[in-house]
């Protein structure tokens, strides 16, 4: 199809993804690769490259807002990011050596798991127990500014969080996604951080993890200007739009719709991957 038509259509789709992502807080990026691949028949590698860029863009754009709220924990973020960066580089290199079918299958599985997980309880209360020694040694929970209004929260199971972060990074590099969900999982479920801290900190480090894979993607020629341009601009425009629309607008319905969409896409990706349509 003509470049202009392709660009406009992709822009529109990316806009919708950005909008949904911003409104539901569920990261619209994860639908970009499947939609580009299944709907537009874009090769999965180009799709991954474009998606990665979109992740970097939205993460950076939202950073100011998240940091302003004051829940971002730079210490925990940077500490965990050590694992994520290593995972991301590994994942990206792996992606370059895998068949597109395999990537599609992993992607499909990831989407299905995401859809299933979105029904879990947001935050499980932990029985009181001593915080992890690493957290105390590194003073992970202290605010670096000694802010009076800082909330001290105990941090648990640091090694588990670290390990999950490496997985999140690997997924990010392998699939071209942000893995925000896994990161929040690591911080919220494994390490017991308050939910708001988990989401804010996750947002902060997502862009860094994506950049770690970007070098590998770039050198392997995954980041194509023709595909990435409408995706990046569309997602950003959508995210800006989504941030302005009434936040209360039937979020619960949106989340359910989103989960269903993700589920459907997951099935499609899995099916196409298994039947070798790639």
């Amino acid at each position, binding site marked *: 199809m*003509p*470049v202009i038509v392709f660009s406009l259509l992709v822009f529109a789709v990316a806009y919708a993804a950005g909008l949904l992502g911003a409104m539901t807080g569920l990261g619209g990026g994860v639908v970009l690769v499947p939609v580009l691949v299944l709907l537009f*028949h874009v090769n*999965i590698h180009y799709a991954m490259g474009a998606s990665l860029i979109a992740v*970097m863009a939205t993460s950076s754009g939202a*950073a100011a807002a998240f940091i302003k709220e004051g829940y971002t924990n730079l210490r925990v973020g940077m500490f965990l990011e050590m694992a994520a960066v290593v995972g991301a580089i590994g994942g990206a290199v792996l992606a370059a050596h895998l068949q597109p079918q395999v990537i599609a299958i992993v992607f499909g599985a990831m989407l299905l798991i995401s859809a299933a997980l979105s029904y879990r309880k947001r935050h499980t209360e932990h029985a009181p127990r001593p915080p992890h020694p690493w957290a105390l040694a590194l003073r992970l929970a202290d605010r*670096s500014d000694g802010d009076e209004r800082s909330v001290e929260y105990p941090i648990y199971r640091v090694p588990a969080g670290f390990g999950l972060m490496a997985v999140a990074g690997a997924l990010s590099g392998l699939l071209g996604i942000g893995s925000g969900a896994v990161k929040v999982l690591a911080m919220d479920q494994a390490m017991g951080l308050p939910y708001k801290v988990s989401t804010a900190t996750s947002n902060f480090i997502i862009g860094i993890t994506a950049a770690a894979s970007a070098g590998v993607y770039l050198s392997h020629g995954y*980041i194509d200007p023709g595909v990435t341009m*409408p995706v990046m601009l569309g997602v950003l425009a959508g995210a800006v739009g989504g941030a302005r629309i009434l936040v209360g607008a039937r979020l619960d319905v949106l989340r359910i719709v989103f989960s269903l969409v993700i589920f459907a896409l997951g099935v499609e990706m899995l099916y196409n991957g298994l039947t070798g349509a790639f």
Partner: protein
Amino acid sequence: MARMEQLIGYVLLAGVVASAAVVAVGGAIYLLGHGATTIDYTTFRGVPGTYAQVRGILDSTRAFSGRGIIQLGLLLLVAVQVLRVALTLWLFRRSGDRHFVWISLFVLLGLLYSLLGHGA
């Protein structure tokens, strides 16, 4: 220090806006010049060096290539992420968090390894 953290947030925001602006300009040039060409992204051919390596991207930009300018914008976006880590490192230095200076340095080196070792 909370203000310094917020500074990071605003720098990031400015960086994205700048990057998006460059990509938009590149996109406009590209569409004006190639809007009617048929494009097919089904097969993976790999982006040529002109658009995948820093030197090539800079050359293309100088030649006012729409695609080159788009890639420049994307490089800018990646640079913003590196800046994110560098600023955080600086913040830790300012607040005397020696452990985290090292931790941030590790992350920064990882990023640079990926970008310079594998990338351009």
